[in-house]
């Protein structure tokens, strides 16, 4: 083990220690997350909304989903081409970016001289580095999902629960912070806080948005339709009441057809036990042909819908059969996070800037290398493979992490005790003597 291995181990240890200090926001998040994981996994077997449980729903569709995702991954270039062709015919502005860097450049060009962007929750935008580049260029990022608004309000730097990014802040804390920042005095009740944003922010979203950014839950290659699920209505507003709607996502968001896209979206809703009150199917910019049959773009909705499809690591993973190639099947449902032993115990210590849990660590490994993954708590994974058992498309993330751990060991980055065990196994043939 080398010095950086030792340093990384100490860093993770310290992060854990800090997260256990009473009264800190880190501890507050950790406690919330432990509770959330138990609830989320328990809900998986409840029959409170539908006739079937979420587990039954997943099991019923698993075979179909695996087949669909494998079909896509095996013919990725064909599906991408098909998708781009149909989207261009439907008046989308489509860009295909080979790398994240290229995507960032295209994005900034599309942004023009706009200085403000309204965005929905988007892991893909983080993955592609759009958020970083926006910050670097001094663009004002206006979050629209209430959870993200709260996170921004608190200037909370650590990754939090993607589904409810600000859900660990208490009502009292929120109104106190709002008084500090906005100078308003509110009753510490969820309804009052929501009312405040409805009465103020909603108007802004309806009238001021020039450019908006979203990702996609799925994109259908056959119809060229973007599927976006949400409950708040923020996505509906910022994708309609805007001049330009920019969609940024990896090419792996593509699925063969619209039924598959809806199935993926429904699965995301079932796994997370959230009801998508709104599901948008966007097949092009707003248009009308009501005057003499002349097609004019930009009636009431977005005048332009720009889609930036990003390859970056994806095609390379297939072609070079990289250890994370299986991860291309991922549909972003988050079941691996809820069922994860390490995530449950360590919350946002076992995480990266891309979010919580194993998938975020794999993304960090892909973009920022092995040291980043070790720092994210790679060695907190017990290899229990709960992620694999829960995954609706049977990705064995535990196995992927095992490969990443091996690489870390070869580079001298494994924690000290593990190295000792290994040596004892090979030399003494018993690590415990």
């Amino acid at each position, binding site marked *: 083990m080398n010095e950086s291995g030792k340093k990384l181990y100490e860093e993770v240890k310290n992060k854990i220690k800090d997260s256990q200090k009473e009264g800190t926001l880190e501890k507050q998040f950790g406690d919330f997350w432990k509770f959330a994981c138990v609830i989320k996994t328990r809900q998986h077997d409840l029959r409170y909304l539908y006739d079937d449980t979420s587990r039954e729903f997943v099991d019923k569709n698993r075979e179909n989903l695996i087949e669909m995702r494998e079909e896509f991954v095996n013919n990725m270039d064909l599906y991408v081409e098909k998708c781009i062709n149909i989207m261009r015919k439907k008046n989308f502005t489509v860009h295909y970016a080979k790398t994240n860097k290229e995507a960032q450049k295209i994005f900034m060009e599309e942004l023009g001289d706009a200085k403000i962007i309204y965005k929905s929750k988007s892991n893909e935008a983080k993955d592609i580095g759009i958020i970083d580049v926006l910050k670097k260029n001094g663009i004002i990022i206006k979050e629209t999902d209430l959870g993200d608004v709260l996170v921004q309000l608190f200037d909370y730097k650590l990754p939090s629960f993607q589904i409810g990014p600000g859900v660990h802040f208490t009502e009292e804390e929120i109104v106190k912070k709002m008084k500090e920042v906005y100078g308003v005095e509110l009753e510490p009740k969820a309804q009052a806080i929501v009312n405040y944003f409805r009465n103020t922010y909603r108007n802004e979203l309806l009238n001021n948005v020039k450019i908006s950014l979203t990702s996609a839950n799925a994109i259908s290659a056959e119809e060229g339709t973007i599927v976006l699920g949400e409950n708040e209505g923020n996505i509906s507003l910022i994708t309609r009441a805007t001049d330009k709607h920019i969609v940024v996502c990896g090419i792996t968001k593509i699925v063969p057809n619209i039924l598959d896209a809806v199935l993926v979206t429904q699965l995301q809703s079932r796994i997370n036990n959230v009801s998508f009150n709104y599901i948008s199917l966007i097949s092009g910019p707003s248009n009308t042909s009501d005057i003499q049959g002349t097609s004019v773009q930009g009636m009431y909705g977005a005048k332009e819908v720009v889609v930036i499809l990003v390859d970056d690591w994806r095609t390379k993973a297939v072609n070079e059969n990289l250890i994370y190639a299986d991860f291309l099947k991922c549909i972003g449902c988050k079941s691996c996070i809820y069922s994860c032993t390490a995530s449950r*115990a360590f919350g946002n210590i076992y995480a990266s800037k891309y979010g919580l849990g194993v998938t975020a660590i794999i993304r960090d490994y892909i973009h920022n290398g092995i040291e980043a993954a070790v720092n994210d708590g790679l*060695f*907190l994974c017990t290899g229990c493979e709960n992620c694999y058992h829960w995954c609706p498309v049977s990705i064995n993330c535990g196995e992927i992490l095992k490969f990443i751990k091996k690489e870390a060991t070869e580079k001298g980055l494994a924690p000290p005790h*593990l190295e000792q065990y290994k040596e004892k196994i090979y030399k003494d043939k018993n690590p415990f*003597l």
Partner: protein
Amino acid sequence: MTKLIYLGCLSNARYQETCKNAIKIIKFLDQKYTVLEDVPCCGALSYHIGNDKELNNHVEFVNNWFELNNISEIVTTCAGCYNYLTKYYTQFLGQDFKVKVKHFLQFLAEPDNLSKLDLKHSGKKLKVSYHDACHLRNAVVPIIEEPRRILNSIENIELKEMENIKTNSICCGAGGGVYSIFKENSDYNSKLIFDQLNRGKILLTACPFCFTALTRIREENQLKKPVKKIEDFIVNIIEGVDPLSE
């Protein structure tokens, strides 16, 4: 040809009493099984960290040892050994790995063995819970129903399932060497397993790693309900000792 009782390095080093109990049961069921000295570790822990070349060397070393000692069959009491011997040894050695590997629970659950044991709990009816270890439920041939078949066969013993069982069980947080580097993982997860012991009066496990983590959590949190390795529990039943006693 030798039939070997493969105790596993952790049990061998730390849980001698449990080893004795396992040997007692296995030998009672099949006299031909034997224990050998200086049995090498299967190398399970190093699969998370070793490179393929190192692993290959170790696997070959162990396999040579098996061949040298003429081992044809193995019953192992360690969940980790079972998982790795059945998965990685075949993966690395292919046809060269000729040893037939069984886990203790598989061996016990064979109908002939169960009827030969004819287990009866002499005390009043006892409710027990079983923790599914990752190593067993994730194996190439998963061991999930066997422990249930065994426990359900014992007169006066009632298996009370916890909320998270089978492939959905909670990992104790000790696997993959995490126990030695980040104990905080089992601090939380092992406690969670105990929290699910609603009606079960005793927690049973077949994995020495889970047992180690669960025992520590039980002591640190001064929990009342005992945790026991399944072989110790079965010997208690055979000998008419109260399984709830320490």
